[in-house]
């Protein structure tokens, strides 16, 4: 399903923001809010995994139903999951399309990766000693 990805700040994301290796943060940042009707069309329940694909990349998120999200839109909190699929084009303004990335949403069985795994996919190396 074609959608527009919207991102923003949320309280749970703010609380966990300095603990990016934690499970809490993973759960918060990988939640994908969709309109209930869109979820019905996709044939998925709360907590189901969805694969989000953009011209830049692909990421797996956990679907959450939200009345407030309009149809054709998905909302993901700002962070590494959303950024995995957002284009770095800034239209000459310095600012990427954090609120207007076109994406494709479909159900998936793939696992949700950790922040560390996402960073390793782009050439990094996890540090998980705490």
């Amino acid at each position, binding site marked *: 399903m074609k959608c527009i990805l919207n991102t923003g700040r949320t309280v749970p994301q703010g609380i966990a923001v300095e603990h990016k290796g934690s499970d809490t943060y993973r759960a918060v940042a990988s939640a994908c809010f969709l309109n209930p009707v869109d979820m019905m069309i996709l044939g998925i329940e709360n907590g189901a995994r969805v694969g989000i694909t953009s011209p830049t990349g692909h990421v797996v998120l956990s679907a959450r139903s939200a009345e407030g999200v309009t149809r054709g839109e998905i909302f993901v909190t700002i962070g590494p999951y959303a950024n995995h699929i957002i284009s*770095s084009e800034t239209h*000459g303004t310095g600012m990427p399309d954090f609120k207007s990335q076109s994406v494709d949403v479909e159900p998936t069985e793939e696992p949700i990766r950790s922040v560390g795994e996402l960073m390793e996919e782009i050439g990094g190396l996890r*540090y998980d000693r705490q």
Partner: protein
Amino acid sequence: MIVSDVVCPFCGCLCDDLELEVEGDRVVRVQNGCSLAEATFMNDTRLPTPIRRTKTGWEDISYDEAIKETADILKEADRPLLYGWSSTHGEAQSVGVHIAELIGAVIDNTSTVCHGPSILAIQEVGHPGCTLGQVKNRADVIIYWGCNPIEAHPRHMSRYTTFATGFFVPEAQRERTVIVVDTRRNDTTNIADEFLQVEPGGDYAVLSALRAIVRGKESVIPKKVAGIAKEQLIRVAGICKNAKFGAIFFGLGLTMSRGKYKNVRNAIELTDELNRHTKFVISPMRGHGNVYGSNEVFTWMTGYPFAVDFARGIAFYNPGETTAVDILRRGECDAALIVASDPGANFPRLAAAHLAKIPTVIIDPHVNATTALSRIHIPCTAAGIDAAGTAYRMDGVPIRLKKVIERGYPDDAELLKKIYDRLNGGGWDHD
């Protein structure tokens, strides 16, 4: 021990009325703060010591070693990028600018991915604003446009706007009209007297329509603009014109959606138009605690609030060209120093990926996503927790962050001065 009137460094509200209970090197209780403040002071896990990436893993290194290697990396670079700065104090930001000037670097702060477009708009049309107390004491109409204070700035409404008792608005909740404009329903829209649900990307058109209506040109406006009925636009324009004091607060819904700074410009021009009828102000909802401070410090030192390129010895500024995401996206920079921020998490994938390809050093109290992309991570104090320093609230009011505990970490300003000294071959001499 109880410490009172503590400033929370988390978001641009910089609430300064927190009461903390401190035991040794830990904060054990936070009063008056929101849940973000509580997490900031109480869940404060730090990287214990500097670390360096090896072929297979990570090793601990000394501060001296980390500083020396950082200076060497920066010295070698043909186009170093110094990025971040918004979660630390002005004292560290100022040393950062001196380093950038010394080595011919590009220096940028996190406004580049939050309110950079607002700055571009202000540079075109100016900014009719005020300190938050003006709104608290006078405003009878409050507009939140493309922002969600309940989630991002939880005490904004109780300290400064909707629910705050003001001198001329003693019964705030009854006397203030709240208008919210957003693409989706959320907790903030639920308390609005008027909710304008705009189609994604439609803010610009709505703002233009409101400007025209305020000017008495409503005949030009079609029946619906970006999902909003003309009648509602006329009603809202009327509320604004009849306000005694109106205040617009806007957020990333304007700066990040298509059109970017043009949306903000249009909102400012609406404010300008409304001032021909009554008193109206507009303010960006700044995110990071001291992101506005980084704009202020950069500006008095270089002339520009962000995205400053010193490659040619002079300061050059052109967002879209000298902004961090663009420099990384084009693979221009060959070394990076990240301070008090997390581009690994906050930049689009392609931009973040370049950090892993070049020698990147991060100075930050916490392990974050950028740690994984770096060669070295140097831990330091957190401004407002174990370091004092200056921060600028979202409305420009400068506030001194307090040091409430000692955890034995070096201040990032001190680390940066040592790096400067190594690069300059001489003592720090700018106080």
